């Protein structure tokens, strides 16, 4: 695991770490109650209100700080649940093969074509006070299938490897073969699919809040955009209302994408060896060849 960190990964991880910190302490360090109205209506950014205020005098800086938690909680919880589901289903299908594989593959194919957003809208509109966790569950239920397919394909390839067969010949049980021989070789893919699902979940929850499906009294970045849209912030020239939240979304997406790049480079074993401490560069055509004049007699 050493030296998997390069510039991209470090940048991604530090932005991500910053947002996680905000998500944890945001509601304590917020200078105002995000829902509290005041007489400062539609003021541009100032010393009192760093990101300005809304039409009802709410402090946007506080809204952004408080809103980070909802986004990250839904993203990480949904990512975690979806990853667990995809590992369970994908690796089992790939390793067992046969009827079990057929069944589990059919299952993931069905979930693959379920349209995520409409389903989430329907579910959340049936359950009016849908909290963050319910939304995370619904997003993960629709988002695990891709990961499962990728993991199944890779497991199919790994279970034929000699080292799995050799471990079997040593007398290892099937569950140990899966957990200790195959799974460690899938970590990079699992991590990458986790990050991918987190991006998907973050965008989904923001979309839901933006179109006003999720409860609008729960602050998150999508909710800010929802109110900005409702109040026609752009037409009124209140750029400070939607740009901070939009930038935060873009930055979070960038951070996750950067982490994903880092993992991708780590997956590739060729990049892995060159990153390991000593920098040895192989040259093509390095093998010495003895040439005799006139060739062999």
């Amino acid at each position, binding site marked *: 695991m050493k030296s998997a960190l390069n510039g991209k990964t470090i940048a991604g991880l530090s932005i991500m770490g910053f947002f996680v910190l905000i998500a944890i302490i945001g509601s304590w360090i917020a200078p105002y109650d995000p829902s509290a109205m005041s007489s400062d209506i539609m003021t541009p950014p100032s010393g009192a209100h760093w990101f300005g205020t809304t039409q009802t005098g709410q402090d946007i800086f506080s809204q952004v700080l408080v809103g980070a938690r909802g986004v990250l909680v839904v993203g990480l919880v949904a990512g975690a649940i979806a990853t667990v589901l995809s590992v369970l289903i994908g690796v089992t299908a790939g390793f067992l093969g046969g009827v079990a594989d057929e069944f589990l593959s059919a299952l993931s194919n069905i979930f693959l074509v379920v349209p995520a957003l409409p389903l989430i809208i329907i579910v959340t509109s049936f359950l009016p006070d849908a909290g963050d966790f319910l939304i995370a569950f619904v997003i993960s239920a629709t988002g695990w299938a891709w990961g499962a397919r990728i993991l199944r394909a890779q497991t199919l390839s790994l279970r034929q490897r*000699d*080292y799995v*067969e050799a471990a079997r*010949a*040593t*007398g290892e049980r099937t569950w140990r073969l899966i957990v*200790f021989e195959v799974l460690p*070789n899938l970590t990079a893919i699992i991590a990458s699919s986790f990050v991918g699902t987190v991006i998907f979940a973050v965008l989904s929850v923001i979309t839901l809040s933006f179109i006003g499906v999720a409860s609008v009294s729960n602050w998150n970045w999508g909710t800010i955009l929802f109110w900005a849209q409702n109040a026609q912030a752009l037409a009124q020239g209140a750029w400070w209302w939607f740009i901070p939240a939009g930038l935060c979304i873009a930055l979070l997406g960038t951070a996750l994408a950067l982490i994903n790049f880092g993992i991708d480079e780590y997956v590739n074993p060729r990049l892995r*060896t060159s990153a390991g401490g000593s920098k040895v560069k192989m040259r093509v055509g390095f093998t010495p060849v003895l040439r005799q004049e006139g060739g062999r007699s």
Partner: protein
Amino acid sequence: MTGEVVLAARGVTKHFPVARKGRQVLTRQPRAVHAVDDVSFDLRRGHVTALVGESGSGKSTVARLLAQLYPLTSGDIVLNDVPTKVKRGKSFRAYCKQVQMIFQDPFASLNPVHTIRYHLTRALRVHHGRVKGEELEKGLASLLERVNLTPPERFLDKYPHELSGGQRQRVAIARALGADPTVLLADEPVSMLDVSIRLGVLNLLRDLKERLHLAILYITHDIASARYFADTTMVMYAGQVIEGGDSETVTQEPAHPYTQLLIRSAPDPERAHNGVPTVTTAPGEPPSLISPPPGCRFAPRCPYAAEKCRTATPPRFDLGESHYAACWLYDSKTTDEHPRRDTVEVGA
């Protein structure tokens, strides 16, 4: 011969089903690759048996069948005089405590994410319960010392990619020894190694055989190494054993036309020097194992093939002490003058 028989194959047969495509699903009978057909032999303690054959002759399949990694199509695997058929679980563990396998490719048979310590610890724990602490360290060190990887602490915490091919193969052998087996199935243990370290690994195996009184099945495509290393040699062609006997006889006085050609095909500086024209051509290639030819499977390429060879499968004919060949040329009933190997000699 020395030592009692520990593991024996009795008419071992393996057919792999072939997927049918398109119309074949409706019309054809289920087809199968006849990978191994009716193979029988004994493995004795303190005795190396070589199985020689070209790629695709089914020799690796034989090893995996004996390791019970594949189920048999028919026949029996007899362990200590008891026919054994195991699938998974306890009985499989009990079986592989006795019979361990060494894989061909040391670059693939060790998991890249685990250290040598992990591999060997698992081998010990699977078969000897939860060994811990001092006892475990001692066990690991003695395993590595047995395969001449000393000092052990230099190797225990390395990852496979930090070791050379020969070292990895030694680790793979140590891992197999972790179970304290009586039988080692070595599937081309040196074919992926550099020529300069092959001999070292073969000598190590021979040494282990003598010290631990192991029965070894040595699978190879190199008949010269079989002569060097093995007491008994069997030759496989297209899934069948066509000749067998003690290594010296099989390699020096080969009886079956295929064995003769196989030995001729090995480069021999003496022969080239004497200017003897080496007529070693057997046109064609090994038959399709999906629909093997009736009769002798070598008949389509055999320079001596007679009508009978193309219709009837030759049984084993004994050619003196423990030497046998499955070839109609040695059927004393059909030929009066008994064309022994001297008259059959190729290209002489």
